[in-house]
């Protein structure tokens, strides 16, 4: 799994600031003030966080705002 280069983005039009991404991978996402929308700290997440990022995107983000390439 960890071999692929994964790129993560968050669609700010969709994001509702629920913070599931931060719970799943605090190293990769951060909720910014003042509107609580998610900021990607690691657009190319380290291998060790990739599974968590995939889970956040596929099952946890309620707004389906997290996009993954690769």
């Amino acid at each position, binding site marked *: 799994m960890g071999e692929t280069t994964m790129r993560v983005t968050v669609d700010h039009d969709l994001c509702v*600031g*629920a913070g*599931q991404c931060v719970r799943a991978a605090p190293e990769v996402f951060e909720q910014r003030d*003042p509107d*609580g929308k998610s900021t990607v700290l690691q657009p190319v997440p380290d291998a060790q966080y990739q599974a968590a990022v995939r889970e956040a995107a596929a*099952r946890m983000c*309620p*707004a389906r705002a997290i996009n993954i390439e690769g």
Partner: protein
Amino acid sequence: MTEAQAVPAPTPAPPTFPMPRACPFAPPAAYSELAEKGPLTPVVDVEGTAGWLTTRHDVARDLLAHPKASKNLLRPGFPALFPGAAALAGEIKGFLIWMDPPEHTLYRHMLAGEFTMRRVQTMRPQIEKIVDEGITRLLDGPRPVDLVHEFALPTASLLISELLGVPYSERDLFQHATGAILSHESTQEQRKNAFIQVRGLLSRVIAERTENLGDDLLSTLIRKYREADVFDHDHLVGMAVMLLGAGHETTANMIALGTLGLLQQPEALAEFKADPALAPKVVDELLRYFSIGDHVTCRVATEDIEVRGVHIPAGSGLIAPNAAANRDPAVFPNPDAFDIHRNSKSHLAFGFGIHQCLGQHLARLELEIVFTELFRRIPDLRVDGEVADLQFKDQALFYGLHRLPVTW
């Protein structure tokens, strides 16, 4: 087209939602029967209006995040959770939880920044203080004691009062009134009066803040509403009423049920006591296991939609009970087992889609602190009497316990 479901006649009358729980620790048994009928099954609400129910986690997410799914409970077809539910709607100006975009988007974004994990963590000292004092009161008081009224409700209430800056002297009124609003057993008249009481209290608080802006939540909202040019006193009062209603009884119910749940699972509890760092996992598993807002995850279709090959006409109720999704074996293997080591992060106890619980990080933090401190300071806490005699809130919008006598 509408007959896409080729069900052989005669079709039995669809079951009515909500469905009763038989075992207090399990979702309604009817969910497992419905699960066998396919991804979506027809049901009717208490007023006889047709809707579709899913017991599956993936389908629940599709329904709850669907762009044509509305949370406006005034729309014809929105599932009535109790008879006459829509009659309350006139009282709910400013209630984020029942708004649709674009209105929802505007207000959700003004609020969301105040409820992030980081922001909520700054409230930790206040929460610890409230919890600490609550436990001290228990320890200083008589035994046995009802944990619901003497600890869970006041703790949850104080937290929200603190969040909104409600004067301490008015918390009894607030607690009583929010309980009356949410109970299925209240008459329409009682609900209405309770709304009026809570609103009056918050209206006074907000009027005072408007004059003297501070750095509390309501003052921050007043500033943001003004910046967005949408400041309206009554609207903000509605928003505050909703925050009280959404955050008080829910958290209180989870405190009592979670305490009971842990007492019922001695091995998990022993492990948790030995390693309080397990708190986040314990709390998420309790949230999944009890799914106290099972009925809240409902919508209505605003247009004809197609979900998993089922044609759903506009105006149909979309019902995704989260207690069912949270026991979907495809996501939670051996779902009926209480297991603090499983991955329960993707449970739907806080809903899904754009309305996913705004207060979830606050609720989690409060519950983590409560369970950690309660079992640290009262390690031999136990239920006083038989679990079989406990009265569960079967009739309420949020599942919980009416009373939980405990001793130590």
